[in-house]
């Protein structure tokens, strides 16, 4: 499922990154010097209290934002100082990102949402079977033509997972994917993640608030005040 990187090989290396937000004249340090290494095939859980810097860290890793200082290497290539165009290209080809709020395009069906990123790379005819297969894998084979508003929160999150996987990413990032779901839907989504990691070798980095969800990961990284503790 994921692009093949030998298990145990470093995919991401983060060296002492910092990030400060500016709210008017107030400076809010979100990351104050984070370093970490992520190996291929890992399922990493990031936890911490609100404001600890979890989402900020994930956005830096997912190339949605740039750190103020420090470096991020993806497959040994520094990606923290490249242009937005290059980052967009890496996001498209190598990374999958799942938002807490699902972030689906409201006017596209589940299938069309999943196919959309792949249309940048391959003909529609070639993508369709794969998109259907991914939706089937997350248990939505009967709802491929439903619009997001016709799906439950858990189902929408599964569509977002399938969309994140359509271009066979090297790493899948998930920002509190179960935060808006009931416990049954949350367990369902986590089971999908676990299967993807165990059966397909997809490297996953997931943020969660829930203590019991940390059990799904190989490794738990706890953040407090912008630092790994």
């Amino acid at each position, binding site marked *: 499922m994921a692009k093949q990187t030998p298990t145990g090989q470093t995919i991401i290396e983060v060296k002492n990154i910092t990030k400060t937000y500016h709210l008017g004249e107030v400076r809010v340090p979100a990351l104050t010097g984070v370093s970490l290494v992520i190996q291929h095939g890992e399922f990493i859980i990031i936890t911490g209290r609100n404001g600890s810097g979890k989402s900020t860290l994930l956005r830096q890793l997912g190339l949605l934002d740039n750190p103020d200082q420090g470096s991020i290497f993806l497959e040994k290539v520094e990606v923290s100082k490249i242009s*937005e165009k290059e980052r967009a290209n890496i996001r498209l080809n190598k990374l999958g990102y799942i938002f807490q709020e699902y972030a689906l395009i409201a006017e596209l069906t589940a299938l069309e949402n999943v196919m959309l990123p792949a*249309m*940048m790379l391959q003909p529609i005819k070639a993508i369709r079977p794969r998109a259907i297969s991914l939706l089937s894998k997350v248990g939505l084979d009967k709802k491929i033509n439903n619009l997001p508003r016709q799906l439950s929160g858990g189902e929408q999150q599964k569509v977002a997972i399938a969309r994140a996987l359509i271009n066979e990413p090297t790493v899948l990032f998930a920002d509190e994917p179960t935060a808006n779901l009931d416990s049954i839907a949350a367990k369902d989504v986590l089971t999908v993640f676990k299967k993807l990691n165990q059966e397909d070798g997809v490297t996953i980095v997931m943020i969660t608030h829930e203590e019991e969800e940390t059990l799904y990961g190989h490794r738990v990284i706890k953040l407090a005040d912008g630092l790994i503790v």
Partner: protein
Amino acid sequence: MKSEYKIPFILAWKHIMRANKWTLSLIIFFMSIAFINMIFVPSLFNGIIDGFNQQIINTSTGNIFITPRGGQDTIPDSDNIVSEITKISGVAAASAELLVPGTLNYEGKKGSWTINAINPDDEKMVTNVSQKMIEGSYLDVSDIDQIILGQGIAGTGNDESNFSPFDLQGVKVGDTISVTFGAVSHELTVKGIFRTKFDSTDNNAFITQETFKKINPQYAHEATKIIAKIHTEGEENIVIGRLDALNLPGNIYSWEQASNLMNSVSDSFISINVILSIFGILIAAITVFIVIYIDISTRRQEIGILRAIGIKPYLIQTTYIILSAIYSVAGVMLGTGLFFAIIIPYFNFHPFVLPIADAKLLVAPGDFIARMETLIWVAIIAGLIPAIVITRTKLLQAIWGSK
């Protein structure tokens, strides 16, 4: 075709097909109203100018008119000339008019006006005065000692709101009035009163050539003006070219050369039209811009998501250009439908009543196309600007607004 090029078309089409129908309808309705606003004012002014022009053509000069050569008071042998003119290709009808100044006297009220001696059968084919009778009836070719008066001569009698000391103050059909040409006076019976709304015509009186011949036999077969109606308006110069070949004893003009006053009125209206059109276009453009801008700006998060999943900015911008173009084309189509199906027919039945003419709405194809293009371009620019702004802002700001 590269697969990525299809993305903007797919996204724009899905937006249109699956967006909230009320919102979509409202946007298109606003577009159509803006478009109607853009074409209404020029159409009204075109209608007013056309109304003026038709008044000149239909009540005074025809499409083409012939006047005596320099040094001559009349065109001789007018009956034969009319006959020759009507044989020319493109000419529908012609009529000789002998305009002479006369003094009309009714119960002590008198004034001087132009009396027009005509052949009613010919005149009916060229002018529409015969259709503008408000009392009595038009002249017949055999009428002797009868006269029809423009309302500017007959006056309105006891109607104080329109009282004028310079007319005959309420002459009625059947009344007898005295007409004096030079030293010769004659009693005529009023057969009808007409109102064309064109002042220079409404201050005329008409009698038959037979009546005038009876009073002044020396002017038989002479005319001071020959007017001609042509089959196709706009071909005046072509027909004038053919008439020139006849070497007629007169000067030939098109109706546009008839009146400097009316030309200056038309020029003034054209200037006002241009100024109002600029404001109309500006207001419509701002309306369209705001509507599209708000619609695209509310899709900020969606644009952010598209960027986050790796869709190239130019594809995102193209999506919203296509979307804006679809909105504007739909608005133009709806506006055109409403304008031609409801507004124009309404004003055809209820024209603007102006003192000099009744004005309907007249759409000039050039104006229509120019305004259509303007609206579509404004909509495209209005869609493109926020799309560019959002695709250039920080990704997190595009998705979440403030982070």
